[in-house]
C-alpha cells in the first residue's frame, strides 16, 4: 500500500504576537486530491495558520514544505507563485475596482504596459462561469452583495491555478444553491489533484465534504483523523476538550404581549424612485418571542430590519407599532432611544469602529445614557463594558485593545455586547453567529434564551437552517421582498422553508 505523498506539510509552526503565543508547534499534512477540514474553536489559531501558509505572516518558527520542497513565502504574491491560494474570511477585494481587475490583481494581462481589458474580461467571465455566475465584470466589486463578493474571491483563487486552495468560511454569506455549486467545484478540484483546505464551523458541511479533519485547540494541534472516524460528538469533544453533550436543545418559549407590529411596511433601500426591496410586509412579534426571518440572497429581510431601524431615513412606508404605540424612526438614534437595536450582518463595515478599543465600541450606542450632561465617566464606561463582555467570555488581552486585532468571533461578541448594553426591548439580529465557533455559538444561544426570559422580543435572520429551527418560535419566509409563508415551530421543516424562500408555496 503506497502512502499518498503530502502536497503540503507544515511542521513545528510557532507564532507569537507580542507576549501572546497564538500557535505552538502545530503540524499539518495536506494530501493531493483531498478535502481537508481544519476545525477548531474561536481563537484556536486556524486563521493564523492559514495566514502563515499564505505568506501574510512571515515572522514564524517552523517549516513549510510544498511537494517536498522547503519554502518560505515572503508575501501573498510569492505564495500564489508557489501554488497556494487563500480565500480569507475577511474578503480581500478592493471595493472601487472592477470585478475583472480584482480577479487579476497583480497578474494583469498587459501589452507594453497597457492593460488588455478585453482579454481580462473574457478570462474573468470564464472563471465566474465555473461558479455558475454571470456578472458584468466591469462593475466595481462594491456594488455586489457580500455573497457575490465571496464567489468572486473564489473565482480569483481558481484563476491562479493553485494546487493548494485554502477556503476560510467560504459559505458564510452563501445560500443553499450557491453552496451546492461550490461543493461541486470542490469535488472537481479534488479530482484535479488539488488539496482543498477547508475551514468551517458548520457541522453539516463538515459531514458533507470532509475527507480528513485536523483539529486545533488553543493554538495546539490536537489530532488529525479521517472524517469517518470523527462523528460530530467526538469532533466537538476534540475541539472544546470537554463533552458538550447532545445537540443544543430547542429553546423554551416565553411568549408575552405583542411587542412590535408591522402593517404593510415597505422599504425603498435604493431611494424612493426605485423598486422597493421589502414590500407590504405585515408581521408581529411578542415579548419573549424569537421570530426567524428566512430567505435567500436578495430576499429583502436585512433591508427590512434596516428600514425598521431608521437607517434609510424617510424612505419607508407603512406603519410600525411598538408596544401598541405607533412609531416612525427616521434615524438609528431615534430607534435606539425607543429601545430598538440592530446587529448588522457585516461587523467590520457597519458594526465596529476598528481603531477604537473594546470599551469604546461596547459603550458607543448607549453613550448618551452613560454620560449625563455630556461629560464622559471613563470608570463607569469600563464597568458597563465589562459587565457586558464577561458573560460572553470575550477573550482579549485587555479592554483597551483595539477591536481591529481581535479574531472574528471576539469581534462579533463586542458588537453583541454593544447592543445589549442599550437594554433593548426589540433586538434585531442579522446573522449573529457568522464566523463564530461552535462553543461560542452555544453561549449565544444560551444568551438568546436568557433574553427571551427577560421579555426582549427578537427578530432573527440566519442562513444556518439548524440555527433557525433551533431558536425560532415562528418563522416568516421572504422571497423578493415579500412574505411568502409563515410557519410555527412545530410546522416548520427545512424543505418547507427552502421552498417558500425560492418562491414556491409548497403543499404540505
Amino acid at each position, binding site marked *: 500500500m503506497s502512502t499518498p505523498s503530502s502536497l503540503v506539510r507544515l511542521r513545528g509552526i510557532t507564532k507569537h504576537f507580542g507576549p501572546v503565543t497564538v500557535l505552538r508547534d502545530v503540524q499539518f499534512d495536506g494530501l493531493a486530491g483531498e478535502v481537508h477540514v481544519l476545525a477548531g474553536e474561536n481563537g484556536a489559531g486556524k486563521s493564523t495558520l492559514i495566514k502563515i501558509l499564505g505568506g501574510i505572516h512571515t515572522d514564524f518558527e517552523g517549516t513549510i514544505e510544498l511537494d517536498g520542497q522547503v519554502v518560505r513565502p515572503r508575501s501573498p504574491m510569492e505564495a500564489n507563485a508557489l501554488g497556494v491560494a487563500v480565500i480569507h474570511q475577511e474578503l480581500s477585494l478592493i471595493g472601487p475596482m472592477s470585478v475583472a481587475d480584482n480577479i487579476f490583481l497583480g497578474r494583469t494581462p498587459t501589452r507594453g504596459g497597457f492593460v488588455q481589458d478585453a482579454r481580462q474580461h473574457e478570462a474573468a467571465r470564464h472563471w465566474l462561469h465555473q461558479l455558475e455566475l454571470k456578472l458584468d465584470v466591469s462593475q466595481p466589486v462594491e456594488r455586489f452583495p457580500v455573497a457575490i463578493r465571496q464567489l468572486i474571491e473564489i473565482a480569483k483563487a481558481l484563476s491562479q491555478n493553485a494546487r493548494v486552495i485554502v477556503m476560510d468560511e467560504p459559505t458564510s454569506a452563501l445560500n443553499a444553491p450557491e453552496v451546492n455549486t461550490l461543493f461541486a467545484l470542490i469535488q472537481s478540484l479534488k479530482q484535479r489533484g488539488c488539496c482543498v483546505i477547508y475551514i468551517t464551523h458548520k457541522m453539516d458541511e463538515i459531514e458533507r465534504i470532509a475527507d480528513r479533519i485536523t483539529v486545533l485547540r488553543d493554538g495546539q494541534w490536537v489530532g488529525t483523523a479521517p472524517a469517518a472516524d470523527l462523528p460530530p460528538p467526538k469532533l466537538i469533544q476534540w475541539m472544546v476538550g470537554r463533552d458538550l453533550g447532545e445537540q443544543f436543545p430547542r429553546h423554551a418559549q416565553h411568549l408575552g404581549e405583542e411587542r412590535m407590529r408591522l402593517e404593510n411596511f415597505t422599504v425603498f433601500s435604493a431611494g424612493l424612485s426605485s423598486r422597493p426591496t421589502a414590500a407590504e410586509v405585515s408581521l408581529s412579534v411578542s415579548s419573549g418571542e424569537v421570530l426567524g426571518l428566512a430567505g435567500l440572497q436578495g430576499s429583502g429581510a436585512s433591508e427590512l430590519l434596516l428600514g425598521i431601524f431608521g437607517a434609510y431615513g424617510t424612505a419607508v412606508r407603512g406603519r410600525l407599532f411598538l408596544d401598541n404605540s405607533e412609531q416612525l424612526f427616521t434615524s438609528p438614534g431615534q430607534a435606539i432611544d425607543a429601545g430598538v437595536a440592530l446587529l448588522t450582518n457585516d461587523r467590520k463595515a457597519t*458594526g465596529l469602529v476598528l*481603531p477604537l478599543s473594546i470599551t469604546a465600541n461596547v459603550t458607543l450606542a448607549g453613550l448618551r445614557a452613560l454620560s449625563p450632561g*455630556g461629560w464622559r465617566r471613563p470608570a463607569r464606561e469600563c464597568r458597563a463594558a465589562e459587565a457586558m463582555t464577561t458573560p460572553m467570555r470575550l477573550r482579549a488581552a*485587555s479592554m483597551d485593545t483595539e477591536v481591529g486585532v481581535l479574531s472574528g468571533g471576539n469581534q462579533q461578541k463586542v458588537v453583541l455586547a454593544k447592543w445589549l448594553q442599550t437594554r433593548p426591548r426589540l433586538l434585531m439580529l442579522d446573522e449573529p453567529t457568522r464566523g463564530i465557533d461552535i462553543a461560542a455559538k452555544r453561549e449565544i444561544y444560551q444568551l438568546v434564551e436568557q433574553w427571551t426570559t427577560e421579555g426582549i422580543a427578537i427578530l432573527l435572520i440566519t442562513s444556518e437552517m439548524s440555527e433557525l429551527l433551533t431558536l425560532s418560535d415562528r418563522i416568516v419566509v421572504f422571497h423578493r421582498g415579500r412574505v411568502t409563508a409563515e410557519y410555527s415551530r412545530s410546522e416548520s421543516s427545512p424543505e418547507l422553508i427552502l421552498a417558500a424562500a425560492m418562491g414556491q408555496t409548497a403543499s404540505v
Partner: protein
Amino acid sequence: MKSFSWKSALASPAGRAFLALLLVLAAGAIFNADGAFFKIGTHRDTLRQASVYGMLACGMTLVIVSGGIDLAVGSLVALAAVCAGKMAIHWNWPWWQVVPGCLAVGLTCGAVSGWVTATLRVQPFIATLSMMVLARGLAKFASGGMKVSTAVQNPDGSYRYVDVPPLFRAIDHRILGGNLSVVTVIFLVCVALAWLALSRHRWGRYLYAIGGNEEASRLSGVPVTGAKICAYAASGLFAAVAGLCQAAQEQQGDPEAGSGYELTAIAMVVIGGTSLMGGRGGIGLTLFGVLTIGYLDKILSINAVPEAGRLVLTGIIIVAAVLTQRRGRT
C-alpha cells in the same frame, strides 16, 4: 493591570512624539548659537511664535480625528484679524464686544464649512478649500485691500493716528517677570479646552468613532452630521482666536495674514502622531508636534541658517517623523 515597560511606552505614539521633540531639543543644545538657545528669552519667544499656529493645530486635530481636514483656517486668521482691527481700532469697541465679535465670525464660517461637508456631503477638502477662498475674499473686501491699522484715513485723504487698543496691548504682553507671553497662555488654554472636549466629552468620543468608521457610527446612533458641523465650527473658533492674537501682535488687521498657516498646522498635527485617516490621535500628541516644529524653526532662526537650507531640513525632518510613526503599527 498591565505592567509598565519602557519599551512599549517609547513605542507608543506619545512616546515617539516625545522622542522626536527630545531630538530637536538636543540639536538645539548642540547648535546653540553662542548660548542663545539656553536663554529663557529664546524659549519664551519660541512658544510665542508657535502659539498662533498651535491654536490652529488644536482645531485641526478635532477635524482630522473625525476623518476630515480644514484648509480654511489660514484665511480665517486673516478674516478674524481684519475684524479685530476694524472693531478694536476703527470702531473703538470695548474688549467684551471685540472678542465675541471675532469669535462669532470664526464660528460662523467654520459652521458653514461643516454644513457644506456634513449635510451637503461635499468632500472636506473641497468644502474647506472653497471657504479658504471665500474667507480670504471677505477679508480683503472688509479691509478694502489694505491693512486695518492705527493709521486711519480721514475723508480728505490725510491720516490720523489712533492709539493701539488696550485689548491688543493686553494680548501682546509678557507676564511672569517677562518670561512668558500672554499669547502662549491663550494657546495653552486652547490646548486644555480642546483636550477636555476630545478626551473627556461625549462629543469627542463621537469624533473618534466617526473618523474610525462613519457608517458604523451612524448605525450606532451617533449624531454624525451634528458632530461634524461642531468640529468645523470649533476649528473656525480656534482660528478666530488665532486671528485676534495675530492682530494684537501686529497691531493691525492684515487681510493677507495667515497665508499657508493651514499647512503648518496640519504638519504639526501629523508630526504629533494623529492619523490623517481619522479615528486615532489626540491633543497631547499635537502639543508635541507644535513644540517640535516650533523649536526646529527657532533653532534654524538663531543659527541664521539660509532659507533654502531651512526648507530642506524641515522637509527631511517631517518625512523622518512620519516614517518613525509608521513602524509602530504592523
